């Protein structure tokens, strides 16, 4: 009799443990999809050097020396009065574009923007960036597992990283 109760107790403990483990797994399972939905490459956007940011955002690939990207920054080009909104325009005739990134070399975090266009999207792409000080601004495209790179130097009157 005594033995039987003991058995029952053991089973109860076992069950409660597995139940709590299951609950944990379920909870983490519920959390996971939300994390994936809000997927944002934190390491790329908080990289503090240009090389790290490029590596984290585009991965490793052979760089092709080609000026196939047309790229303008500032209005008028290469000069901007207000660094808080510097117009940027990228144009390219490349096919199979996997990813486009914009980097500002002197910003605290160089990576500014990352685009993942599908085949339905065509260029030009225009946007506005914050540029902290006179800096090289770099546009890079990863297409067919090759990297294309163009850069422009832009002069800033009022820094724009407030």
């Amino acid at each position, binding site marked *: 009799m005594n033995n039987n109760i003991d058995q029952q107790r053991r089973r109860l403990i076992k069950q409660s443990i597995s139940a709590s483990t299951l609950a944990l797994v379920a909870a983490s399972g519920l959390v996971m999809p939300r994390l994936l939905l809000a997927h944002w490459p934190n390491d790329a956007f908080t990289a503090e050097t240009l090389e790290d940011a490029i590596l984290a955002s585009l991965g490793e690939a052979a760089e092709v020396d080609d000026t196939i990207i047309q790229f303008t920054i500032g209005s008028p080009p290469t000069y901007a009065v207000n660094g808080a909104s510097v117009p940027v325009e990228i144009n390219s005739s490349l096919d199979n574009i996997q990813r486009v990134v914009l980097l500002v070399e002197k910003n605290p975090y160089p990576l*500014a923007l990352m685009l993942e266009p*599908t085949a339905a999207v065509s260029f030009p*792409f225009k946007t506005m960036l914050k540029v902290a000080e006179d800096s090289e601004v770099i546009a890079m495209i990863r297409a067919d597992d090759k990297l294309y790179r163009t850069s422009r130097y832009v002069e800033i009157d009022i820094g724009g990283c407030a």
Partner: protein
Amino acid sequence: MTVNAKDRIRAKLLEGQTVVRILLAHPMHTGRGKNEQDELVPAEFIQDIRCWRNKEEVLTIKCGTATSRNPYFAFQLNGGEMGDVIRLRWVDNLGAKGVAETKVV
């Protein structure tokens, strides 16, 4: 300065291409700027923007802190017809969300 909290999106058919222009209403604080009392303004910026044409997802934009206040984007979509629905959603680092939708004219 108050931000007029309205996201704007326009899509226009031009020479067989759909030209989409987006203007979001968002302060885009980097976390480094200061307010009048010289206190740091906590980071608040859009991280992820997704665009759809009808049911098809066409573009994902991921932003860092270096995107301007009230972010502006313009791009083109191949083809398209009058009445196509262009739709976008954004999410910022604090989890705030926004949706904007327009029809191609």
